[in-house]
């Protein structure tokens, strides 16, 4: 049974965008007469590398929620769980190029890859230099050694944040790309889900999870995880998740990290904090210190019940960039 606040399901994405644009006119605008091409209200920023992202709808604040000061310059918006088109990415690219080129940062999904590649080709024909960083840090989506196959999930936040801060310093495209790669290489994520979601245009759950069941490692579109089983206690779930994340980088005694506890949509913040309590305990036992903890919704899947944990390994450079202020309609941070 679909129980949502909707008008016509087909109009869902565009009405959402109309709502966003009318709520935040000082911060965001659309270009090319296409609601799905969203850029900063003050774009382009001359002399700054432009940062663009894009992806399917249904993941707010991903993706367009990170367009704003200290973060990204533009975003191409797709249908629910669908890649935006290459032409929309190209429009965004044109609108944010400040003469220093554009870096695409997006998640490793084949539709997005194909379209961003096509957009890159189109931008090249217009002599806009474009580079890409494809984020993929979900340890449940492919084993160690096959990192290039991993899906990008909530950890992309750290890539946006560090690359955005670097671009703000006036760094050139190669340098900003280096930071994006470094941030991406230092983050690992794993999720757990308790319930499926309903895509408005589909109208029924696209997969099922039994009463009393959970799936560890499920992707944000319901991609299969690494284990489905009976729902365990919060502490047990967190332990199993951390057992996947920590050996993967690996994170070791003496490391300093930032942690992102990300709600997938319907999970109350209360539960995210119950879970974080156990994360903190595990990290402290391993001798890993924590610099900054983010708790909230950073990459969702409509009304999915579940959460993900991302751990981001810091060095002085990344820590300095993470600490920089940022401000979008969906994310604000004062200087740390």
């Amino acid at each position, binding site marked *: 049974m679909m129980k949502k606040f909707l008008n016509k399901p087909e109009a869902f994405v565009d009405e959402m965008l109309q709502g966003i644009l009318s709520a935040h006119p000082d911060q965001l605008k659309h270009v090319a007469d296409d609601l799905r091409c969203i850029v900063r209200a003050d774009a382009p920023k001359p002399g700054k590398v432009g940062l663009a992202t894009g992806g399917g709808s249904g993941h707010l604040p991903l993706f367009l929620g990170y367009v704003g000061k200290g973060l990204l310059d533009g975003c191409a918006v*797709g249908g629910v769980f*669908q*890649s*935006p*088109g*290459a*032409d*929309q990415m190209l429009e965004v690219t044109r609108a944010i190029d400040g003469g220093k080129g554009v870096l695409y940062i997006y998640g490793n999904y*084949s*539709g997005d*890859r*194909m*379209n961003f*590649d*096509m957009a890159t080709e189109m931008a090249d024909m217009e002599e806009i230099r474009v580079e890409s960083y494809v984020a993929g840090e979900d340890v449940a989506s492919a084993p160690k050694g096959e990192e290039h196959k991993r899906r990008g999930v909530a950890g992309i936040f750290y890539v946006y944040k560090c690359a955005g801060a670097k671009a703000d310093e006036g760094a050139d495209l190669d340098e900003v790309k280096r930071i994006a790669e470094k941030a991406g290489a230092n983050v690992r994520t794993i999720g757990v889900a308790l319930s499926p979601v309903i895509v408005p245009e589909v109208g029924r759950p696209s997969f099922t999870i039994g009463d009393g069941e959970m799936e560890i490692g499920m992707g944000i579109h319901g*991609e*299969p995880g690494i284990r489905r089983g009976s729902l365990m206690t919060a502490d047990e779930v967190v332990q199993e998740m951390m057992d996947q994340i920590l050996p993967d980088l690996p994170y070791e005694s003496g490391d300093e990290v930032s942690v992102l506890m990300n709600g997938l949509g319907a999970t109350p913040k209360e539960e995210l904090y119950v879970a974080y309590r156990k994360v903190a305990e595990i990290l402290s036992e391993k001798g890993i210190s924590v610099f900054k903890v983010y708790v909230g919704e950073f990459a969702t899947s409509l009304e999915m019940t579940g959460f993900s944990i991302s751990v981001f390994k810091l060095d002085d450079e990344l820590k300095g960039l993470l600490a920089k202020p940022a401000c979008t309609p969906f994310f604000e941070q004062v200087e740390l």
Partner: protein
Amino acid sequence: MFDVSQAKAALHAVRLTMEENRDRLIELDSAVGDGDLGLTMCKAFVTADQELAGSSETDVGKFLMQAGMTMAKSAPSTMGTLVATGFMRGGKALKDKTACAPADIAAFFRAFSDGVMERGKAKPGNKTLVDVLEPVAVAAEEAASSGDMDTVAAAIRDAARKGEEASRGMMSEHGRAAIYREQTIGKPDPGAVAGRLMIEAFASVLK
């Protein structure tokens, strides 16, 4: 000789076959994917057909590139993007030609297949559209030496059908269907079916 008016006819023929097979493609894609293939293929070719029917372009290459651009805009799903890429790359290979010989058609399908492989990273044997396109490219190259367009048409139609048939036995390794892996063996690949339909329609106007 294949010129813009034939290219227009090809787009129209593909459109008709996609409309005719809309429900079947939806059904096939529902089994291993999200079920939108019938919709996106119709959208891509209806739009291309409509927008370009009145085109005054005489350069076949440019015309086919424009067709690809139209598809990219109208159908941003996997197959939409791949087919759009194919038309754009294939068109690029025919740039500056107003009439194409069999060798040009072979170059078109070669660039088409290479473009799809580069864009989608799938190789022959991965149970995708490529398993139709690559044999078609090879067959067109071989048949082109005959210098006869009917021979090329027959060769690509034949290669497309055989390619689709062969892909049944393969295991999906790309796109949504890859989730099902082993379970896809023996089932038709929706993209390969759509690819075969496209080639058949294309072949029907080649002369």
